[in-house]
């Protein structure tokens, strides 16, 4: 006997694959896939006028993609797919970025939006990022710009690197936080031996 929720899942998976498959041609640098976790449950949201597919909500889902050497995946407790707007809205998100297979940055945020046309991801609501060699970043909002393969952090940006803490209005960096640019009102504190 199949439960009603389990019966819905195959429909949603198909819908999601069609949805993202249609966008792939527009963003050749990014190849995202959407696959719900094995235990996922979902409900269908009523269709919006003029959209080809109905908006959909998933739980315990993952979205992954790649841009050049950078591969990423998003894990969220829920995903709402809106074909009409060309985006997926995620909650309780953990984003992981890999370079040549190595994990270089992990971000967590209450919310995120994945834009299908560009492959960009915007994390918001207070983002915490942890990179290699103890580098850390906190900001109100962090955007992954797939076309430029960089992240842009805005709003109360706090960047920590060893004994150094940098506050700024905006940060722009590669995903490994190797080359970082900060602008706005910058304040740096170096504790201990400089």
């Amino acid at each position, binding site marked *: 006997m199949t439960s009603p929720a389990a019966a819905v899942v195959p429909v949603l998976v198909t819908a999601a694959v069609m949805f993202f498959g249609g966008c792939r041609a527009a963003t050749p640098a990014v190849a995202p896939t959407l696959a719900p976790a094995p235990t996922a449950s979902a409900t269908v949201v009523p269709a919006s006028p003029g959209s080809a597919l109905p908006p959909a909500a998933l739980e315990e889902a993952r979205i992954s993609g790649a841009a050049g050497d950078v591969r990423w995946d998003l894990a969220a407790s829920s995903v709402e797919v809106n074909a009409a707007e060309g985006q997926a809205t995620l909650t309780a998100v953990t984003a992981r970025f890999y370079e040549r297979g190595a994990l270089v940055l992990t971000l967590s945020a209450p919310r995120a939006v994945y834009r299908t046309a560009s492959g960009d991801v915007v994390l918001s609501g207070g983002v915490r990022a942890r990179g290699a060699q103890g580098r850390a970043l906190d900001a109100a909002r962090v955007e992954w710009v797939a076309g430029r393969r960089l992240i842009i952090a805005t709003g109360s940006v706090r960047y920590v690197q060893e004994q*150094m803490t940098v506050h700024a209005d905006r940060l722009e960096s590669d995903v490994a936080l*190797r080359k970082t640019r900060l*602008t706005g009102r910058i304040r*740096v*504190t*170096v504790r201990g031996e400089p």
Partner: protein
Amino acid sequence: MIRRAALLLGGLVLLTAAPLLAAPAQPPVEITGATYAEFDARTDTWLLRGHPVVIARGATRIEAAEVRYRAADGVAVATGNVTVRHETLRLRASAVEGRLREERVIATGRVEALVHRPDGDATVSAERVEADLRRRHLVATGQPALAHREFSLHATRLEYEDAAQVATAEGRAELQMPEGRLEAGRIRARLAEERAEARDGVRLVSEDLTVESPQVDVDQARGVAVFSGGATARRGGDVLVAAQITVDLRARRAVATGTPRLVVTPP
């Protein structure tokens, strides 16, 4: 029993003394005023730009249009209208390398260091000044000069110790005074006492008077110079030779002691 008590007491002393023996907390480095910052992990260097960028650590403050800071060794290279302030010292230069761990700065390019003193500021100017901020000690090279009140000191190399208020000029040293010009291989000026000592090929020129000797002690406040070690004074065609000649530069009077010999040439 006594041994155990002694050990316990020793341990207690060590435990209570430990916080006192701990290294004092280092003051943090605070950088403000920057509107642009860039970090490159390959070079481990921060580039900061601002109007100006201000680096402060304890009593030291460096201001500049651009700063490159290497976190690994705590070296900040500041360029563009650089000002360094530390207690009574204010230094201006085109570029400054600040070694923050050692509390040393190396300033280059038309350097001017001003030391605030109660009896009048002393100014050291040179092409290069190395300052030990902890010791308040300056070493200036590249046409260095020290100006204090109505005196100025020039040489190939000039040192200034602010704690002792002593300036030492070496290599073609020259002390300019209102009464004349003193040249020597080495001149040591004690600013607070207004006294100077010169060694190695001493020569004083005061209007038409010239005095030469191996060494001289000058009382700048009184305008009196004591030439010793075998001195020769010349004025026009007259020559005075003695073991020691004391010259009152203001009264233009000389006293010779130690087998003095005077040769007068009629005009």
